[in-house]
Structures are given as structure tokens and as C-alpha cells.
């Protein structure tokens, strides 16, 4: 029992921290500075990161902890741990940007930090969920917390409106998700992902119902990860929500959504007829979503003047690139290679994306904190003169999103595109070309930000004071430095990501997990050794 609790220690730590800050907040006098709670929660995130790190080394590659105590509702593998790490890192840095931002927005309430912790908890459970019920509850824990956070600036009609929009569309998407779960359950008679996978692979599932369910699940997750055409909420919500919240949800929801979607598709619908190129496969659907997302996101970002809104469209474009990572598995042939596929593209790209976005939204929080509602162009014009450090971090973030060499974003694109090319036998060369063309188009709007920050004078009529906040600067600085570090020496991170991808492919493949489910052995079960994925 205690062993089992150790296995989920990252989740427990975050839960406890959320509860503690909720309680402490109740006793803190109204109107007092609540920023210190941010340090408490950040400490919790840091401790949870440490726990993830320890668990990572406890697990042998390709295997998963599997515990009876939770009725197989969680899969604790390297993939889940890696994404938990990414989520926690994003949450940690985003929390620090809020310390002085919230008081400046006159929204300094203690609940903020509790909600951040709870939604991070939801995200972490999402990427570990092993059955559809856990997945649904985790997703709701995350979503409901974020609805509230989006509307946290109660005095602002923008913030409230964005929360309401997100809420209506989000609960609609939840209903679609539930319908998908229901159909999948109806088709197979179980809500355990592995058993669904076995039923589907064994041909025991009602195939029409299963297909319906699969499409609805993809649509619902497409909504969460902002894939076009289910992306419509993104720009409005990103723009209206407080910048510190947008930064957190841009990275966290995306990581959690992609993690859950990848696990769901591979575990439940990993059978060839559901994934390989035919008309009824998710591969085809994902290709279409990927192309629409990157093209629509980039095109619409071209005309944006508001930093937050531009980043929202950029988020849609990046969803397009990230969706390509899911194609690596179906693209590789069956057998040995399929077992080693997925690779590091997904996790590493998410890491790079997280760092760049935290930095960018941190800057958006700093420039848009006072006077103006949002980060329009005039807010960061001439930033280089007012605050070289923030301007530099913003530049690094933009270059990383654009994919300029020596930034993490470049390595992410290279890994992702390279893997797709080498595993698919050239089948997806065209898609890679589309993605590269898109990333070149994106130079127009990413560099525009840099140009405005460096080459324009700040607007004379309404000079905007920058938010003075040491924690924010630390968070932005750390994100920018890590972006460079992972761009210059990414090998360890990429190897870890590859290990994570490898472990997901293993824990989701009926051929490798079938035996373990019946063994019903608690604690650590390790059967398979990695097929030299990490080191060639």
C-alpha cells in the first residue's frame, strides 16, 4: 500500500499543495499580498518534479509500474512521467509569472494558486490515465479549474467573456468526449484502455460503434489541443484570459491533451485496420487535422497585432506540427520497428514549446500588466530600450517557435520531421515539406514581434510601465536559458524523450502488455528490455 502511494507521489504532492494553499488562503487577510503562496505552490511543483525524476530512474525502460490498488486506472510509465515533468515545469514557471501580475490586475486571490495546482493535477492524471473514466474525470478537473482561471480577472469583461466562451464550448466538447467514451464502451464492453485495445485488436468489438467512438474522441481532444477546425475558441480565450493563466494553459493543456490522445489512440485503436492509411483509420484523420491546423494557424497569425492573440494562432499551427508526431507509429511497419517508434519527437517538441511559450507569455504579462488590457503592439514597442533582458527572452522565444537553429524549437522540429521521414519510408515527405513551408511563412509574424521590440520606438503618447517582478524575470529568464540549452546540447533530453516514446509504444501494445494485466502483480513489473532505442 505504501509502495503504491510512493508510485503516485507526484500526484499526491501536487494535491496536498493545492489543498494547503486553499486552506492557508482562507486565513490570509483579505486584500493582503498573496504572492507568497506562489512560492509555496512552486515549491510543491518542484518537489513533484523531483519525485518524477526519482520514479523515472526506478522504472526500467519500456516497462511500467502497474498497481492493483488503483484498479489499473493509472499507467505509470516513462511517457507519463516525462509529460508530467513537462507539465510541472510549465506550471512552475507560469506560477512565478503570476506573483506580482495578479496584484497589478487587482485580482490577487489565494484561490488562484490552488486552482493552478488542481488543474496541473488533472493534467498529470490525464497523461497517466489507463481507463476512460479516469481520463474523463482528470480532463474535467483540469478544464473546470481553467474555466475559473480564465475568468479570474473578474473586473474585466474580456476575462469573463473568454471564460464563458471557453466554458460553453468546453462543456460541449466534454459531452462529445463522453459520447465517444460511451460508444467505445458500447462497442467493447469495457472502459479499460488495454481491454478495449485487446477487443479491438481481436476483432471482438462492434466496429461501427468503435469507429464512431474513435472519431468523437479525436474531435473532443482536437478541441482541447486546439486543432483546426475545432480551434475557434483559442484566440478569444488566449487573448481574454490573464496572461499568466494563458501561459499556463497554452503549455499545460497542450501537453496533457497530446499525451492523453497519443496514449488513447495507440492503446485503444492501435490495431492496424484502425490506424494504417485506409479510409477508416485515425491516421488519415490526423493527417487532415495536421494540415488544416498548420495552414490555418499560420495564415491567420499573419495579420495579428496583439501578442497574445498571435501566440494563440501560433499555438494552432504548432498543434499541426505536433499532430505529425502521432503519425510516426502508424507510419512505421509492424514488428520490431513499430515497437521502437513514436520516438522523442512528441515529448521533446512539447518541452521546447512549453519553454518558449512560458517565456513569451511571461513577457506579455510584464508588458500588459498596467494600463492596457492586453499586449498590443504598442505595449512592447521599443521593449529593447526599456528592458533588454525581457526583450532578449522574447526574441529567444520567438526564434524557438520559428525554429531557428541553436534553439530548442529547431531541435524539436528536426527530431519530429526527421523521425517521420525515417520511419515512414518517405511516405510523408510531402507532409514534411508542407510543414517546412509553413514554418517559413511563420517567420513573417514571429520576426515582426522581434522587429517591433527592437526597432520601433515606444509609443510616445501613452508610455506603459513595465511590471517590476523578480519572480517573473526569473521564470522568463530560466525558460529562455533552457530554450538555448536544449537547443545547443539537446542530446540527453532527446534520449529521454525517445525513451518516453518507446515506453508508451510498449505499454500500449497488446503484444507486450497482455501478459502483465493478468499477472496482477503489484509494484514494479518489468519484463521487456529496450531495443537499443536510446543509444545507437
Amino acid at each position, binding site marked *: 500500500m505504501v509502495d503504491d502511494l510512493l508510485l503516485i507521489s507526484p500526484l499526491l504532492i501536487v494535491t496536498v499543495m493545492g489543498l494547503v494553499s486553499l486552506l492557508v488562503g482562507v486565513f490570509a487577510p483579505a486584500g493582503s499580498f498573496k504572492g507568497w503562496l506562489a512560492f509555496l505552490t512552486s515549491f510543491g511543483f518542484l518537489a513533484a518534479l523531483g519525485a518524477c525524476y526519482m520514479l523515472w530512474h526506478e522504472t526500467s525502460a519500456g516497462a511500467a509500474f502497474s498497481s492493483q490498488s488503483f484498479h489499473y486506472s493509472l499507467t505509470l510509465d516513462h511517457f507519463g512521467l516525462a509529460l508530467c515533468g513537462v507539465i510541472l515545469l510549465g506550471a512552475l514557471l507560469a506560477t512565478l509569472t503570476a506573483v506580482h501580475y495578479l496584484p497589478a490586475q487587482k485580482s490577487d486571490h489565494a484561490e488562484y494558486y490552488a486552482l493552478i495546482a488542481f488543474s496541473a493535477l488533472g493534467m498529470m492524471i490525464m497523461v497517466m490515465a489507463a481507463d476512460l473514466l479516469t481520463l474523463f474525470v482528470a480532463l474535467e478537473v483540469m478544464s473546470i479549474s481553467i474555466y475559473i482561471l480564465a475568468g479570474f480577472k473578474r473586473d474585466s469583461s474580456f476575462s*469573463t*467573456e473568454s471564460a464563458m*466562451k471557453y466554458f460553453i464550448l468546453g*462543456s*460541449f466538447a*466534454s459531452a462529445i468526449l463522453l459520447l465517444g467514451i460511451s460508444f467505445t464502451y*458500447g462497442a467493447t464492453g469495457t472502459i479499460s484502455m488495454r481491454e478495449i485495445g485487446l477487443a479491438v485488436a481481436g476483432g471482438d468489438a462492434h466496429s461501427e460503434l468503435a469507429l464512431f467512438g474513435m472519431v468523437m474522441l479525436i474531435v473532443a481532444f482536437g478541441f482541447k489541443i486546439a486543432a483546426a477546425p475545432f480551434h475557434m475558441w483559442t484566440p*478569444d480565450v488566449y487573448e481574454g484570459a490573464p496572461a499568466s493563466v494563458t501561459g499556463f494553459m497554452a503549455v499545460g493543456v497542450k501537453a496533457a491533451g497530446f499525451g492523453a490522445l497519443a496514449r488513447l489512440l495507440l492503446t485503444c485503436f492501435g490495431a492496424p485496420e484502425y490506424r494504417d492509411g485506409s479510409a477508416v483509420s485515425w491516421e488519415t484523420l490526423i493527417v487532415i487535422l495536421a494540415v488544416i491546423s498548420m495552414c490555418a494557424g499560420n495564415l491567420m497569425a499573419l495579420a495579428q497585432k496583439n501578442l497574445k492573440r498571435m501566440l494563440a494562432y501560433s499555438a494552432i499551427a504548432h498543434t499541426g506540427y505536433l499532430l505529425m508526431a502521432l503519425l510516426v507509429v502508424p507510419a512505421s511497419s509492424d514488428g520490431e520497428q513499430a515497437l521502437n517508434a513514436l520516438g522523442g519527437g512528441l515529448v521533446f517538441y512539447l518541452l521546447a514549446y512549453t519553454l518558449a511559450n512560458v517565456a513569451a507569455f511571461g513577457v506579455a504579462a510584464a508588458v500588459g500588466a498596467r494600463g492596457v488590457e492586453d499586449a498590443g503592439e504598442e505595449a512592447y514597442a521599443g521593449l529593447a530600450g526599456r528592458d533588454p533582458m525581457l526583450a532578449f527572452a522574447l526574441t529567444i522565444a520567438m526564434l524557438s517557435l520559428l525554429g531557428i537553429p541553436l534553439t530548442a524549437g529547431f531541435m524539436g522540429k528536426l527530431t519530429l520531421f526527421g523521425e517521420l521521414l525515417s520511419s515512414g519510408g518517405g511516405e510523408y515527405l510531402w507532409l514534411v515539406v508542407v510543414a517546412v513551408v509553413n514554418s517559413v511563412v511563420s517567420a513573417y509574424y514571429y520576426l515582426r514581434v522581434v522587429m517591433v521590440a527592437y526597432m520601433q520606438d515606444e509609443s510616445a503618447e501613452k508610455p506603459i510601465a513595465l511590471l517590476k517582478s523578480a519572480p517573473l524575470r526569473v521564470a522568463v529568464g530560466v525558460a529562455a536559458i533552457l530554450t538555448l540549452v536544449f537547443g545547443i546540447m539537446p542530446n540527453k533530453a532527446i534520449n529521454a524523450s525517445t525513451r518516453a516514446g518507446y515506453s508508451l509504444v510498449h505499454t500500449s501494445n497488446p503484444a507486450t502488455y497482455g501478459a502483465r494485466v493478468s499477472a496482477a502483480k503489484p509494484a514494479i513489473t518489468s519484463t521487456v528490455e529496450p531495443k537499443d532505442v536510446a543509444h545507437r
Partner: protein
Amino acid sequence: MTPLLASMSQTAIPLSWYLAVALILFAIGTIGVLTRRNALVVLMSVEILLNAVNLTFLAFARHHDNMDGHVVTFFVIAVAAAEAAVGLALVLGIFRHNRSVNVDSMTALRN
């Protein structure tokens, strides 16, 4: 399973009927979300959607003769309550700003 129950499930209404009702409910809910202007009615439509899904879960649970569907339904009901609480609070917030709960009054964020 007792013989009595087994015989009951044989004579019971077929699965497809339940599904048909559920899908009709789902369609009603969807149309409500898409067309009704009052935010409160939109929230109610979302509830209809969730209950439509609950119905399918129960129908499938009976069909497969296991408890998974029942469990999910309980959770859905609980989550729906939480969602409704947040939703109503947001409607109040919107009303404070717009003096109206019309969904089409919320178009400050666009393009």
C-alpha cells in the same frame, strides 16, 4: 445472475431503442447549444447533452451486463454538478458586465 433477471433482460426493450432516444436527446441538446441566445438555456442544453450520454451508458451497461457504465454515469452526474456551479457563476459574471445574459452579447473578443 438469477434466472429471473436473465429472463427480464431477454424480454426487455432492445438496445437500439435506448440509443435512438439518447441520440434524439443529444441532437436536441446540440441544437439548443447552437441556437438558443440565453446563456442559461445554453447551460440547460449542455445538461441535456450529458443526460443523453448517461442514457447511452446505462443502455450499454445493461447490454454488456457489467457495472462500468453505471459507475461512469455516477461520475458524470457529479461532474455535471460541478460544471453547472461554475457555469452559473460565469453567467452571473457576464450579467454584471453586460447587463444581459445573451450569448450574442459576448463578442468583444474577435478576429
